[in-house]
């Protein structure tokens, strides 16, 4: 029993002494030390640094960041995650956020981030010159950096290009049981439908989407790659995909019995979306962040930014990647990509009503 008591009271007494010593000498040191210990892993703030939250995958941005650090000496610290959580984090952190810049894919996400006042307006001659007006925010809060064309892919074995014309035409009865689509939960499809609503109004767009659903050959796919593979394997004949998925798959598997087709060339043009970035409202290094953004929008960096993922550069002076060039030129939709964000909720509801899963 005795030995129990001793062992039990020992830490207690020791604790008391500790506390008293702390009280006497340095509450401040203790608190600072505690805070420092908690911060373990939080980025130490370097002299010249940009902190980036990115929804664009690491392998698509890190080579550029490394290059930038080599050229300018500015250190870039970043984390990647999906857009939703990153926007939620920026919103929650408010003025305290360490992030100077956010890169996301899809105009809808850029739009909502701007709506939530997470980006600051930027006056920049460089960016104005580099990024066409339709691919940037009207209040200069975000700028597109690369373009993604969402187009038609078809089986070269079962479809003649002459049979194809527009996105709207895929609702025609002649495609019954031959169409493959990716899920409506993917923002790329939401943006496409948003532009259709802008052009045709709700009622007609709903008819088109219902037509698509009626023509489906199989359940909608979770990703574009699987969709292209299904066309190559013969499960369906036509589908709608982003071009770079097609490029990647051909790079990986060699020539496929499928090709890209540019729709709506006599009407509205191919649907294009952006991946882009903005400087955060509460950036700690706004000038450095702006410099990085400007650097990404022109020259060699702009070429790599697009080429690394077989996308199209947003800057019209930048050369296309040879693989991308081989798919040919096309007329792109001239709507401002903001429409995708503004009408996204409408688009999702419409697709739900049309039974597009």
């Amino acid at each position, binding site marked *: 029993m005795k030995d129990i008591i001793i062992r039990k009271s020992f830490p207690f007494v020791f604790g008391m002494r500790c506390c008293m010593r702390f009280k006497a000498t340095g509450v401040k040191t203790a608190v600072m030390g505690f805070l420092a210990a*908690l911060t373990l892993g*939080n980025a130490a*703030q370097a002299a010249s640094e940009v902190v980036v939250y990115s929804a664009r995958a690491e392998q698509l941005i890190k080579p550029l960041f490394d290059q930038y650090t080599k050229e300018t000496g500015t250190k870039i610290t970043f984390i*990647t995650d999906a857009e939703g959580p990153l926007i939620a984090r920026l919103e929650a952190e408010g003025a305290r956020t360490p992030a100077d810049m956010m890169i996301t894919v899809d105009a809808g996400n850029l739009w909502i981030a701007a709506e939530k006042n997470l980006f600051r307006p930027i006056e920049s001659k460089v960016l104005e010159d580099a990024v066409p007006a339709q691919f940037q925010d009207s209040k200069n809060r975000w700028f597109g950096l690369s373009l993604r064309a969402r187009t038609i892919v078809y089986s070269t074995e079962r479809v003649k290009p002459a049979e194809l014309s527009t996105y709207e035409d895929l609702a025609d009865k002649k495609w019954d049981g031959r169409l493959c689509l990716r899920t409506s939960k993917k923002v790329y499809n939401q943006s496409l439908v948003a532009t259709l609503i802008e052009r045709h109004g709700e009622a007609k767009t709903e008819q088109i989407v219902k037509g698509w659903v009626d023509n489906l050959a199989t359940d909608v796919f979770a990703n574009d790659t699987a969709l292209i593979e299904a066309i190559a394997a013969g499960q369906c004949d036509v589908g709608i995909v982003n071009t770079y998925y097609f490029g990647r798959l051909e790079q990986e598997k060699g020539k496929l019995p499928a090709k890209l087709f540019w729709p709506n060339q006599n009407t509205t043009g191919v649907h294009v979306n952006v991946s882009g970035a903005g400087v955060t409202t509460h950036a700690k290094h706004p000038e450095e962040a702006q410099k990085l953004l400007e650097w990404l929008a022109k020259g060699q960096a702009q070429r790599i930014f697009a080429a690394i*993922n077989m996308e199209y550069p947003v800057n019209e002076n930048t050369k296309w990647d040879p693989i991308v060039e081989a798919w040919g030129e096309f007329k792109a939709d001239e709507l401002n990509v903001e429409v995708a964000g503004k009408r996204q909720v409408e688009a999702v509801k419409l697709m739900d009503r049309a039974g597009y899963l």
Partner: protein
Amino acid sequence: MSATATLHHAHSMTQPGLLTRIGLLRLCAVLLALMVMAPLLVIALSWGTVQTDIWAHLAQTQLARLLGNTLVLVLGVGSSVLVLGVALAWLTATCQFPGRKLFDVALMLPLAVPAYVMAFVMVGLLDWAGPVQSQLREWFGRGVSFSFRGTGAVIMVLSLVLYPYVYMLARNAFLAQGREPLEAARVLGHSPLRGFFLVALPMARPAIAAGVALALMETLADFGAVSVFNYDTFTTAIYKAWYGFFNVQAAAQLASLLLVIVLAGLFLERKARGDARYYQSARRKALLHRTRLNGARGWLATAFCGLIFLLAFGIPIIQLLVWVGQGAWQDLDERYAKLVLHTLGLGGGAALLTVAAAFLLAYFKRRYADAFAATLVRLASLGYALPGSVLAVGIMISFNHLDDWAAQAQTALGIPVQPVFVGGVLALLLAYVTRFLAAAFGPVETSLERIKPSIPEAAAILGARQWEIVRRIYLPMLAPGLLTAGLLVFVDVMKEMPATLLMRPFGWDTLAVRIHEMTSEGLWQRAALPGLTLVLVGLLPVAILVRRSGR
């Protein structure tokens, strides 16, 4: 149980121990539960303004289908993991057949395979355009092809990765029962099979229920696997509200509804179990006498175990290896050492913290044994049933409030204001505790329940203090359960993706993060390298788990 409490109470009145005097145990438990429940509160607070617009839209267009899908999934996965887990556990724990020793270990291995990896492997392999069906079409024509993305496929994939929870806990329970209860049944004239249903199964019920509950909570929370199949569940609706409608509030409202459903389910299971308590004697059991399955019956058992092992582990691993060999290996660089290190470090740290937290809560619940304790503990383990990203955002927001206070302290002290919690390692570890407390709590509580109250009572009568009873009686008797809990959390944390993504400090990428970088871009085959590495690293804790838990 009330007898225990009274005894303890009487004891503490005569000789007030330090802990009991200031109610430190209760205080700690309440604080811990509050911390874990904070993100749930954040989510519940979303009801401030009801998002009627979104609700009306969902109700009109898809709520019925979503609920139907979710119900089918829960029933399908629940019954599959129950049958698979219990049958396999019974075979390896109490029977003797060719290859049993191997399967003992091997059948646990699928625990190391993340559900989302299993999903993309199986769909890549077995869907219409995959190699298997392409070959079949070549042989037999188009007629044989089918879509491998329906309800059955989702249930199969989730069951194959989730049955190990039931297998592990049921196997431990069967081993711990020893042979006496079964022999008693035999003496009373029951066949081995009847003995199983009359004695062994009811005795193992708390463990089996804990295992099934874990599997079902993961099923409800799953987003990664179901989205590979584009199978709409309640959880996918949460993400639709969030990503599609930009409406985090509606997402949180849906999520809180999910919690209510889970709570109701857990409550019903408790009610159904009634007041029965399941104790066993403290002594290590004599070796269980295994029933020898002879001839065809033995080989049938081997074939059954082999089939499950092949589907749940063999095939996915081979497919991952093939993809790595086809080119994913090119991504292998010096950073992988760091990825593995981070993965292990976070897993280990989170395991220690979570088991400590689970023990504290389980002991608190047993010690006080009142409705308050039971409710508190139940609520604290709900984090497991929430979709990862939703919980991650809830945690992030609640830690952000702490950062608000830290900022005030920083201003007062004249230090530059910067986030202390969000983006730090500690916050991430605490996020894991919140997420996986339920996984640790199951094994800890079931092994705690097996300790007869008479043992600590005897110690109390002999004058031992509370801490002494914990240290000299509970901890040694619980050691296997604590280890099981720790390893479970370890493996779960390694596979965890959303909280890691959102809350990891800069530069702290893990293997799961790498998988996300690839799959978010549709690069399934390149995801094979981090996927395979994750599974291989996960084998280590899983192997210890099996070796420790019995012969």
